């Protein structure tokens, strides 16, 4: 048999079969060529070849030709090692592939977690983009591009929607440079700053063209252009007050864009727009906490059914400015829809005692009617409040109707019924006397 070191080389090869007569002679140049050729074979074929070579060696050994036997055994060892290397390479590739698949699954898992743990608010998704697109004659794609968020200033990213809008603009107009009006006066902003610094009255706020343009567009009813103007302004806005103003304007534009008046004269709201407006008011308040946007934010939360947040925002607004009647009315409405009648009445009573303008009263009445329209039979207490507001507005016939309607609702507690009866008995007495 082979010497020990050669046996180690060929150790995996078992058996000692005799090779067939007439097989080509191994060793020397022929052997190395054979080895090169074998490198292209598969692992199983290589191992089979190694076995055959080893058996040939055994045959030479039996024929007492030790040199040839030794050469065959060495050759068998080389082929076996080549097969091992090829096998390792194959395993390596499979390992690489598995690792890549695992990595891709990991990334998918992380993305899934991002969407699962931080989902977008359900109210945001309430509007069906396809239906909305059909209504407005725009493609679904355009609506898909709209994230529903206002554009953010100073962010190191460009959104898909912005990119798409610019591609469209280029396609339509072939515009390569900024519009000529801007290009002709590249120093406009700097010049205005210089002129204002020279002539402005001390203490006056700097003029914000985007703010002016935005409110101008709101005035003309073009809310999309208004939103665009405010968003453009936000890109360059650094001062908190400036950002607060622009976000407030943006929120107004979103809100009015989603505001419709129905055949009954009452408001109908696009909740998607309300959500966008709420987001913009939040940013405005974050930049600078002011009573008006806080009050509006409370109303947005109310429309979205987030009563706890609506209450907090309204109370915060009233802590900054107690004279905001509409915010107090909103607060009363927020309490009312939560069946917190004592607090609701306190809020309405506070407004009535202040004897506000008829416009304030009619706004409150419309909001209460909207609640009754959307939830028929659910809030009879609203009829009592409507009656009191109409009574304060001097509309006795309507007040009487509303109060009687309230008294027909038998489930209300006795103190409220007594209040309605007292109001009915004297339709002109001040609310403080009731």
């Amino acid at each position, binding site marked *: 048999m082979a010497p020990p070191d050669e046996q180690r080389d060929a150790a995996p090869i078992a058996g000692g079969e005799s090779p067939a007569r007439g097989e080509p002679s191994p060793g020397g140049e022929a052997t190395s060529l054979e080895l090169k050729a074998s490198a292209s074979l598969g692992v199983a074929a290589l191992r089979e070849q190694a076995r055959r070579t080893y058996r040939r060696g055994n045959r030479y050994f039996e024929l007492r030709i030790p040199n040839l036997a030794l050469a065959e055994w060495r050759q068998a060892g080389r082929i076996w090692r080549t097969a091992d290397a090829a096998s390792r390479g194959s395993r390596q590739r499979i390992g*690489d592939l598995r*690792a890549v698949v695992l990595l891709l699954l*990991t990334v998918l898992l992380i993305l899934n977690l991002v*969407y699962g743990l*931080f989902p977008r608010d359900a109210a945001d998704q309430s509007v069906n983009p396809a239906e909305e697109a059909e209504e407005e004659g725009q493609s679904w794609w355009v609506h898909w591009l709209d994230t529903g968020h206002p554009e953010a200033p100073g962010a*190191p990213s460009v*959104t898909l929607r912005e*990119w798409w809008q610019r591609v469209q603009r280029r396609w339509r107009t072939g515009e390569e440079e900024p519009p000529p009006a801007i290009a002709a006066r590249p120093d406009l902003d700097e010049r205005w700053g210089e002129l204002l610094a020279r002539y402005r009255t001390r203490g006056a706020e700097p003029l914000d063209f985007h703010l002016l343009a935005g409110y101008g567009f709101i005035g003309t009813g073009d809310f999309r252009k208004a939103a665009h103007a405010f968003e453009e302004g936000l890109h360059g806005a*650094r001062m908190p007050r400036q950002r607060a103003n622009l976000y407030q304007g943006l929120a107004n534009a979103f809100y009015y864009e989603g505001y419709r008046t129905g055949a009954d004269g009452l408001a109908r709201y696009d909740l998607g727009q309300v959500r966008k407006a709420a987001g913009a008011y939040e940013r405005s308040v974050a930049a600078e906490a002011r009573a008006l946007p806080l009050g509006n934010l409370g109303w947005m939360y109310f429309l979205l059914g987030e009563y706890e947040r609506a209450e907090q925002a309204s109370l915060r607004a009233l802590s900054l400015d107690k004279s905001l009647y509409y915010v107090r009315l909103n607060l009363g409405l927020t309490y009312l829809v939560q069946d917190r009648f004592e607090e609701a009445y306190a809020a309405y009573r506070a407004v009535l005692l202040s004897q506000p303008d008829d416009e304030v009263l009619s706004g409150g009445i419309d909001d209460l009617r909207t609640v009754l329209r959307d939830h028929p039979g659910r809030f009879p207490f609203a009829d009592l409040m409507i009656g009191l507001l109409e009574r304060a507005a001097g509309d006795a016939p309507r007040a009487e109707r509303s109060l009687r309607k309230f008294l027909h609702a038998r489930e209300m507690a006795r103190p409220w019924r007594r209040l309605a009866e007292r109001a009915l008995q004297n339709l002109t007495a001040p609310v403080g006397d009731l």
Partner: protein
Amino acid sequence: MLLPVVALAPAIGLLWLLAMWNRSDWPNGGLLAVLMCLGGSSAGLALVLNHSVEKYSALWSDAPALHLRLLFWVLGIGLNEEFSKLLVLLALVYPRRSFTEPYQGLLTACAVALGFAAVENLVYLERYGTPTLLVRSLLTVPAHAGFTVPLGVCLAYARRAEGLLRKYLWLVGGLTVAVTFHGAYNIWLSFDQEWLNRIAYMQVVLMLVLAGLLARFELPRNDGAGTPRGQEG
């Protein structure tokens, strides 16, 4: 016409420098150019992924809660963009038998990142105009290379590693480092404070120093042996 050239020039210039620096046969200049083009197209995928995060999750750049904003920059923008670049590397570089050395990962990752940054520059040119473009060319183009270099190097170590777990850990580790670098850079720039913006500049310098150190350790030395590493196997 001049501005798009200005937008693309820094990335192309840096890639040319890399190609000149590269002393090995693989990756060659042609492959680096192809990788740069594909890196540019991966910017489109990143744009779609970023948009999806903004549209379907609570994370966005101006979210009211701070943690949502921070997560957006890291797990939104950072992960999406680095993942897009990684896909190009996984498709074109990782399966190659020649890909065994970390410096190859460094070069190929740089090429993909520069392509990505070049296309992003073009998009920003539309959005913010020339001054921003010039700042981006100096800062963000090399920054993208800095984010992705660790990813490329780790890809090579994953290729060398024995065993599934080690390979996987190298891949995940590379992506984690890239995403962290990218996210941190975005976070510094997302705030209005000047000193935080300066941290972003410092980060770019540090990342370039790191890339330089990696290159110094990993690039094949011209020792006269005439046998550069990374021959086609």
